[in-house]
């Protein structure tokens, strides 16, 4: 059992990790075919995993309906929506349009999913405003610098700002191209080093906490 839970996954991780690290340096079509095959395996595994996800969703919401916890009606809506969408989807053959005509699934997608997604995304504008208000309260010298930089960048990026403060565009560009880029690159270098280090630890089996349990087992 320990072999299946610990040694076999570590061996697979090592072999696949080394193989696909070297794949980057091999331009031969065999290398490309290998990565295409693995992508297909991933899709197959994801297909099975989706069933796992569905079981999880139904279990969580079934318990809510059964125990009639507050808001259990929403869980019922989820079941109804899932059944209706699946039924319409099968009847539409999984297509949103057939010969240019919108199917039932296409109608559901355009009139339910798209507006709902758009609503969630548009809320972001208000959240940015409230987050900016909190960030720009100049309570410290750092927040003051942030506030001044933000005002200059905002003025430099909108036509009215450029009209009122013609120099703001140059300063905004300098802030973005020099200060902002330098910091972003520093973060990205750190991220890259950390990413390679973690990958090496995982490939060599030094970091194995992601398999569950302690590292010493």
């Amino acid at each position, binding site marked *: 059992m320990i072999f299946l839970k610990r040694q076999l996954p570590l061996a697979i991780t090592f072999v696949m990790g080394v193989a696909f690290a070297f794949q980057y*340096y091999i331009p031969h079509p065999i290398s490309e075919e290998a990565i295409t095959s693995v992508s297909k395996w991933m899709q197959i595994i994801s297909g099975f995993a989706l069933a796992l996800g*569905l079981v*999880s969703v139904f279990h969580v919401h079934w318990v809510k309906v059964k125990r009639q916890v507050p808001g259990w009606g929403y869980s019922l809506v989820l079941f109804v929506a899932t059944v209706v969408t699946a039924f319409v989807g099968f009847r539409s053959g999984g297509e949103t349009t057939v010969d240019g005509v919108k199917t039932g699934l296409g109608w559901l997608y355009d009139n339910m999913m798209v507006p709902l997604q758009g609503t969630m995304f548009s809320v972001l504008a208000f959240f940015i405003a409230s987050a900016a208000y*909190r960030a720009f309260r100049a309570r410290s010298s750092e927040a003051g610098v942030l506030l001044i930089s933000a005002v200059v960048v905002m003025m430099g990026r909108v036509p009215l700002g450029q009209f009122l403060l013609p120099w703001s565009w140059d300063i905004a560009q300098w802030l973005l191209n020099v200060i902002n880029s330098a910091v972003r690159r520093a973060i990205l270098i750190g*991220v890259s080093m950390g990413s390679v280090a973690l990958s090496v630890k*995982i490939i060599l089996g030094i970091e194995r*906490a992601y398999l*569950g349990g302690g*590292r010493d087992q």
Partner: protein
Amino acid sequence: MILASLLLLLLLLLEAPALAAISAPEGFLALDTPNDAGKSLSLVWKASPADRAGRSVQVWMAESPDAPFKKVAEFPSNTRYVKPGDFPWWAQPVSKGDHYVKLASSQAFPIEDGKPYFVKLLVREGDQEVWSEVAEATAAPNMFNTAQANNLVFVVAFTGILLASIAAARRNPHVHLRRIAGLDAVEEAIGRSTEMGRPILYLTGSGGMDEVSTIAATVILGEVAKKVAHYDTGLKVPHRDPIVMAVCQEIVKESYIAAGRPDAYKEDSNFFITSDQFSYTAAVDGIMLREKPAANFFMGSYFAESLLLTETGASTGAIQIAGTDSDHQLPFFVTTCDYTLIGEELYAASAYLSREPVLVGTLRGQDIGKAFIMSVLVLGTALATVGVVADTGIFNYVLDLFKDFK
């Protein structure tokens, strides 16, 4: 005035290369394109002072020297030069400044591997033309991209440094780690949740298990789950990816066992919501507003949902700790969360929380790698600047070593 015009005309005649000087390209060669997947050929020939826009070069190909040749490309003779940065000095098919043309397989003229092809150039200007010699080449795929040899050497060297650092940390486990406020606050956040009798919400980001940041998030989840089990606090981990959910279920379960509280483990602490970005966000926002977790953890990679999640969490008064390598989302996390693990701190969290010498040792290895990169940045900037000022390409031999070639 007339004299000046005549002088100008004479000058122009002297300046203009004589049309009679048209000649075949020197050093013309056809070869298999180096470091590629096959099905392509490369042509090289010497640059000439007579190259100019008015003179064109046509490439003609055939499957045998006797078969009719077919025109496959045409371009002005003063184009298609090898420029600095196109190839590293150890893998360049022709000297910098000379002509280089890559011919890929196309519908008009398919190129097969292992089959010889015959190529010749036609140089034309006005009604004059001259043919080159016929060159032969066979396309073949390559097993190693020599242009990326520097990359491989650095990866192997960095791996060696990491392993040496781990060995050093095993001998001397007392490695100093700088304080990371966000990770110190983990204990505080869990304690606060316990006192308030509210659950902890832990998100592993939008990535799958093929992303390093998601793996880092699952590793931190293991450490958080141990503390949660110890304090007997509630834990909720909603997921966007069923595979990540399955992995996290196992991690949390094992953490409860490791903490000696297998009885406290709840199977449904990890649950799948949906893989759709905004549906997931709406569901998690709903959990935050209904159940009011006392602590929210946002680890892993995030996209536009980051602010929607953290701003909602902030409105509920929860203590929020984020950790991400998604640099575009960092400003949102820094603004709305109490603590943010920036970039590599996310990867270091496992070592920091567990304090295991083997993991801590790798952090020293990373620091050595960063010191090396900083040295290269300073050296490269200095050499490139001197190279431009002195108008010399001699420093390219050093600079090429640190460039990423495809």
